[in-house]
């Protein structure tokens, strides 16, 4: 029973060898449990270091605090900060405990359900112990469910929790190379499909909102929504035209396949490095106006400064979140330069 309990606590990716080592050191049930409890914090922390993307987590923290729990509208910034911390920690633990072959839509839905459950439990505890620390009912009714839908798309689009140590093999068979290319192409195709789906969703929802808006609605709000639609359309067009996978011919020999694959990786790095210009900037102008519009009590100049500050923060977090992926692709590109065929 102790072994079963310990098995549950060890992240799946580390389970095999950690449980094996603990079994090898077994002397008595008490010693086994003590060993396991001493090892566990290191194993979980190491797994989290490997699987959590700090930039993406910081972005999610900002998104949860501002967009889901409506931090500026709460009595105190900490009222939204505590559920934000609980949510981000839950997601980080979900990453650490990710199974080795996750099914992404299910995994993303599981992430969102876990984070929502943790926050709701926290709210329940607050309701019993300290009602003053509860989120406003408006943010729980509107911001929370809407934010969870967006969180689902973010988690689905940017799967985290996968960790692969760098490959060192200097030789590959044609079959292994094709397998790697298939995984790479599948990953890019999937990401673009999700992004295009999100573009259609955003354009549809925002257009409907713009049409349904009463004539008396603030002009700033109308502009913000219109610019958000334009930004989403631009991103969709860019992805469709420039970012789609260029399939590598299956008839090419090993050297030609490596050359074409490296070309594709180089193109992917270029696109990722220009991420700010074709993704963040077009998608941020509308929401920036929305943020500025919501800060009604703030002076106009301070409002602009806050909106630009929020944009700069989100942009730098997203660019930072992209860096590990670029670095990993760059490393693979360099490794492929010296790979030869193994027959």
């Amino acid at each position, binding site marked *: 029973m102790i072994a079963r309990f310990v098995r549950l606590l060890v992240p799946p990716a580390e389970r095999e060898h*950690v449980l094996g080592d603990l*079994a090898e050191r077994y002397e008595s049930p008490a010693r086994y449990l003590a060993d396991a409890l001493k090892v566990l914090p290191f*194993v979980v*922390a*190491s797994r989290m270091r490997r699987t959590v993307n700090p930039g993406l987590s910081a972005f999610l923290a900002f998104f949860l605090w501002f967009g889901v729990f409506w931090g500026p509208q709460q009595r105190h910034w900490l009222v939204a900060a505590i559920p934000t911390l609980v949510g981000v920690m839950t997601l980080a633990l979900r990453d650490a405990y990710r199974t080795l072959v996750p099914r992404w839509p299910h995994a993303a839905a599981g992430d969102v359900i876990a984070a929502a459950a943790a926050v709701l439990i926290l709210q329940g505890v607050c309701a019993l112990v300290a009602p003053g620390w509860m989120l406003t009912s408006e943010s729980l009714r509107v911001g929370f469910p809407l934010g969870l839908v967006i969180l689902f798309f973010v988690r689905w689009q940017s799967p985290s929790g996968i960790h692969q*140590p*760098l490959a060192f093999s200097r030789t590959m068979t044609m079959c292994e190379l094709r397998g790697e290319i298939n995984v790479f192409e599948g990953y890019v195709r999937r990401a673009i499909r999700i992004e295009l789906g999100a573009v259609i969703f955003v354009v549809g929802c925002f257009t409907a909102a713009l049409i349904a808006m009463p004539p008396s609605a603030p002009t700033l709000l109308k502009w913000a929504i219109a610019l958000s639609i334009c930004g989403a359309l631009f991103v969709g067009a860019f992805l469709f035209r420039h970012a789609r996978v260029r399939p590598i011919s299956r008839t090419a020999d090993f050297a030609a396949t490596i050359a074409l694959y490296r070309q594709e990786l180089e193109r992917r790095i270029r696109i990722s490095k220009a991420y700010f210009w074709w993704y963040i900037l077009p998608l941020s102008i509308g929401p920036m106006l929305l943020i500025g519009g919501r800060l009604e009590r703030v002076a106009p100049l301070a409002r602009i400064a806050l909106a630009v500050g929020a944009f700069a923060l989100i942009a730098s977090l997203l660019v930072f979140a992209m860096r590990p992926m670029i670095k990993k692709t760059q490393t693979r590109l360099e490794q492929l330069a010296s790979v030869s065929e193994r027959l």
Partner: protein
Amino acid sequence: MTAILRCRDDAYGITIHETVEELSSPKAVALGAVYATLDRLEDKGLVSSWLSDPTPERGGRSKRHYRLEPDGQRALRESVIAARRICDAVEDVWGAAIWSGKWKPARQK
């Protein structure tokens, strides 16, 4: 990395931990800290790992074996050279007495 080198073909969690404890004696080292360090070394490309076949004495679980990669061997060599320089510098001032049990810290003036 020294422990991996010393364990040769039998470098996995338990043996590496035992060797690290032996090398760092009298300081105790937690097994969990060894895992965390091995993960970091693997991420830096200094060591690589693979799972062996499961064995009955480990409850049917596999061992994660480690080996030094060329970059790891280079890094270890550089560390050894740096450590030797530090030893030489200290020995120059304190003499060979530092290696014996008779060594005592100098009194403050």
